[in-house]
């Protein structure tokens, strides 16, 4: 792709520090690729996330939230200009329980945008994307009300816009 690069710290300022629920959980962007437009978010293990106190396995809601967060963030990697977005739908297949005490990662790829809609595929895993915990498919409405997270705070793309 172009000379466009991504400042992971600036993206974290927008998506983690500026978004209260991502900040509460600690959803942190780890890496970004422009082509295909995708990014990886990591969430450390935390006793507060446990859904089954006997096994220590984290709750499905944590996986749902991580996949929603990473999928929305991936739309901004694809978009040329940041616009406000809102999740339209999200389908998650739960493939296996997360392993207790281990961080969970998720990669989302925004593989298509139209004037109105962005389409995203995502997968949650520990270390190996080919051994997934869950997979997600989602769509986002573009140019909804409000401001985009990146407009409102910082924009992670280092380009001529700044």
């Amino acid at each position, binding site marked *: 792709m172009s000379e466009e690069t991504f400042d992971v710290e600036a993206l974290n300022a927008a998506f983690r520090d500026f978004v209260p629920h991502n900040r509460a959980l600690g959803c942190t962007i780890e890496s970004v690729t422009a082509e295909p437009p995708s990014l990886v978010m990591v969430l450390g293990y935390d006793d507060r996330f446990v859904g089954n106190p006997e096994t220590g396995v984290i709750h499905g*809601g944590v996986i749902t*939230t991580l996949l929603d967060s990473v999928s929305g963030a991936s739309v901004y990697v694809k978009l040329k200009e940041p616009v406000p977005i809102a999740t339209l739908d999200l389908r998650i297949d739960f493939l296996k329980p997360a392993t207790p005490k281990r961080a969970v990662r998720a990669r989302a790829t925004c593989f298509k945008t139209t004037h109105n809609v962005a389409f995203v595929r995502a997968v949650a895993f520990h270390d190996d994307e080919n051994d997934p915990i869950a997979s997600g498919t989602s769509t986002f409405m573009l140019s909804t009300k409000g401001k985009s997270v990146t407009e409102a705070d910082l924009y992670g793309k280092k380009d001529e816009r700044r």
Partner: protein
Amino acid sequence: MSDVQAFIDAARSSGDWSRLTEAVPYLRFMGIGVEVRDGKLLGHLRATEMHVGNPTIPALHGGTLGALLELTAQLELLFRAETAVLPKTITLTIDYLRSGKLQDVFAEATVLKQGRRVTTVRAVAWQDDPAKPIATATLHLLIIGG
């Protein structure tokens, strides 16, 4: 018998489900619980600033609504005595209909089809008016042991 199973059994016999959800760290952290109102099981998210996903509106994070819908669907099966063990979610499909305001969210679940191994459940979440849902979900839940 496991601790979780003991909480499930106690909730089913006493009708008090709060001790079960309080025994789960994530639900305590999230302020998600269930209550019985007019004989129906009702999921309840006590929304705080921590649940916000878009601070510019502000709107609740979609993942928090997903967590509420999933829990309400799972516990509906226990409440209706369709199963005695916590069902496992196979798939969860959420439709977001309106942005969630920074106020409490309620949810209710309906069994669409009870199968031998899989039960299909619809869950609906709303804030001010049950007739104006903010999100709905369809879940396939595995109800065999193991």
